[in-house]
């Protein structure tokens, strides 16, 4: 990594992110140290620093006059010293840049070029290099883990409801030069801009769409708005994506929202039950209707067949009758009466016979009935 440190200018070891060590004055925007050096190299560097300090008399700090404070030097030590200086200089001037990184080279503090992956050369101390992880995705969580009271996650919607929102902004560096030189405190800026953008969008929207279907749209809009604002700062930051983790009602009112969901279920149940009832009775009615119609058809067949049978029977009889009406008529009459009278209880009284007038037509109707009921004639 930033292996071009090690001179008197980088007195602190210079393994800051970006390894800035030009100028030797205070740097604004404290950057976290990362990429700790391998201790061996560190020691070598330290040793080199000491030797250098000895050889150069501690000069080189700006404004700091260095008086000559040389020990006695022999030719051998001088040669060795020179060799060591050259080696150290080379060691300090070459640096490597990873695939995921980019370096920005400064010539006396002025931007000179951007180094890409591989071994890069920045002749110390004229050129200094700062390495930035450009493709690495950084995340800022906003609204996550809010306390019990209103915090950054609670936002006011356009219809003055409150919604609890968590989201995550994923970003990387799109332009290392702008990122480095245009903006102080990039993470704080991203956080503030993101929160502001989200609140602006939420304030434009109503509560219900946020909770339900518009998340994708909001995430899209949010990404655009954050990116626009950051581009306005020429920050060199690229918003990779916005993860919309949570958009819920605040926990203080979540029960009421659950009740609504339960009510929706109830409504559904009621409707489904009614549908079931409807299906049942309508099907039954269709069955009844079919039954009625079939019965009617059956009746029709029965009646017509019966009529046709009866008619054809009559016609057959009539045709025979027509051939010999007198005889047939008599025969039919007699035959019928024979059958009828044959099975009927009969009392024959001849009023014209002698003493016929004297017969009192006393009819013990009940008796007759009993007789007939008890099974037959006398």
């Amino acid at each position, binding site marked *: 990594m930033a292996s071009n440190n090690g001179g008197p200018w980088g007195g602190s070891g210079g393994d800051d992110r970006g390894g800035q060590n030009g100028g030797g004055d205070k740097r604004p925007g404290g950057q976290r140290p990362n990429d700790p050096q391998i201790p061996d190299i560190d020691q070598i560097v330290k040793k080199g620093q000491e030797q250098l300090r000895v050889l150069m008399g501690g000069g080189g700090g700006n404004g700091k006059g260095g008086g000559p404070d040389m020990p006695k030097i022999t030719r051998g030590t001088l040669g060795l010293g020179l060799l060591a200086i050259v080696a150290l200089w080379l060691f300090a001037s070459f640096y490597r840049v990873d695939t995921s990184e980019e370096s920005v080279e400064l010539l006396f503090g002025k931007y000179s070029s951007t180094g890409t992956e591989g071994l890069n050369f920045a002749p110390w101390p004229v050129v200094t290099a700062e390495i930035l992880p450009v493709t690495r995705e950084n995340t800022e969580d906003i609204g996550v883990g809010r306390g019990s009271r209103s915090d950054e996650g609670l936002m006011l919607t356009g219809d003055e409801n409150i919604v609890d929102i968590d989201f995550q902004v994923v970003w990387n560096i799109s332009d290392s030069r702008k990122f480095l030189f245009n903006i102080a405190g990039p993470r704080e800026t991203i956080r503030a801009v993101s929160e502001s953008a989200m609140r602006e969008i939420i304030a434009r929207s109503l509560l219900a769409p946020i909770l339900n279907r518009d998340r994708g749209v909001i995430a899209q809009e949010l990404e655009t708005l954050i990116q626009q604002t950051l581009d306005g700062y020429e920050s060199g930051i690229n918003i990779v994506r916005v993860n919309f983790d949570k958009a819920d009602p605040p926990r203080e009112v979540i029960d*009421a929202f659950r009740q609504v969901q339960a009510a929706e279920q109830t409504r559904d149940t*009621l409707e489904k039950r009614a549908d079931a009832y409807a299906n049942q009775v309508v099907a039954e009615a269709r069955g009844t209707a079919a039954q009625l119609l079939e019965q009617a058809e059956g009746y029709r067949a029965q009646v017509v067949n019966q009529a046709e049978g009866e008619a054809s029977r009559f016609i057959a009889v009539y045709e025979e009758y027509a051939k010999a009406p007198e005889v047939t008529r008599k025969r039919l009459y007699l035959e019928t009466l024979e059958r009828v009278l044959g099975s009927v209880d009969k009392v024959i009284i001849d009023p014209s016979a002698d003493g016929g007038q004297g017969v009192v037509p006393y009819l013990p109707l009940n008796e007759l009935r009993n007789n007939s009921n008890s099974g037959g004639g006398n």
Partner: protein
Amino acid sequence: MRKTTYILPVLAVILAAVFSSVFIVDEREKALVLQFGEVKNVITDPGLAFKIPLVQEVVKYDDRILPLDTQPLEVTPADDRRLVVDAFARWRIQDPVQFRRAVGAGGIETARPRLERILNAELREVLGSVDSGAVLSADRAALMNRILVQSRARASALGVEIVDVRIKRADLPEQNLEATFERMRAEREREAADEIARGNEAAQRVRALADRTVVETVSVAQRDSDITRGEADAKRNAIFAEAFGRDPEFFAFYRSLTAYENSLKGSNTTLVMPPDSEFFDYFKTDTPGK
């Protein structure tokens, strides 16, 4: 050897002079060269720069966009509701000479509170001139722009350019929170009641429609069935009329006989009759005809 004892100190002095007169202005910085407090030179381009050692000194300012976060501020919009507004600004030093004059030796740390005061004043003024609805909802972007323009004008006196002003949060005060929650709950309860009522309504509608369909279906079937039965009866009559119409008198005779036979069937009938019907013509005499 004696030469070197002279040369070396001289060399060192020269080196020291060079190092203390040369300084580096970083890409992130602007520098002022001051001579006993008086601005002699402004260096805005990064790179190597020079000054006279001991006499002149260098002051460097950050040239990047700098953050400014204000404390939450309670403002009163035109409709007298109170709002808690949390804003931030982004700014940069545009004119280092003016900046130096305005803030003196304190630099950025001195400038921050002054900028914050400007920002707060403009926030109060702009947000106080509109209704709270505008702040809370749609017009926020326009308001932020107004605040930006006004505060930019005032901050330029400090040699500072305000790059952006944004309202981070515009909320009702904490005391209103519970009331808002209560209202949200009430709205949800209304919605739940509405859902159930609508469910009942729909169910009733479906049931009523079903009942109606049942009645309709059955009655249509009943009608059709009666029509069919009527047709059947009509046909029966037609068949009979056609058949019996050939000889109505014989039909009457024949049908009467059939009826006698059917109605007087069985042993539950007792007939009291004189023996003078046609049936008994030969009952009394072998030559009827009297």
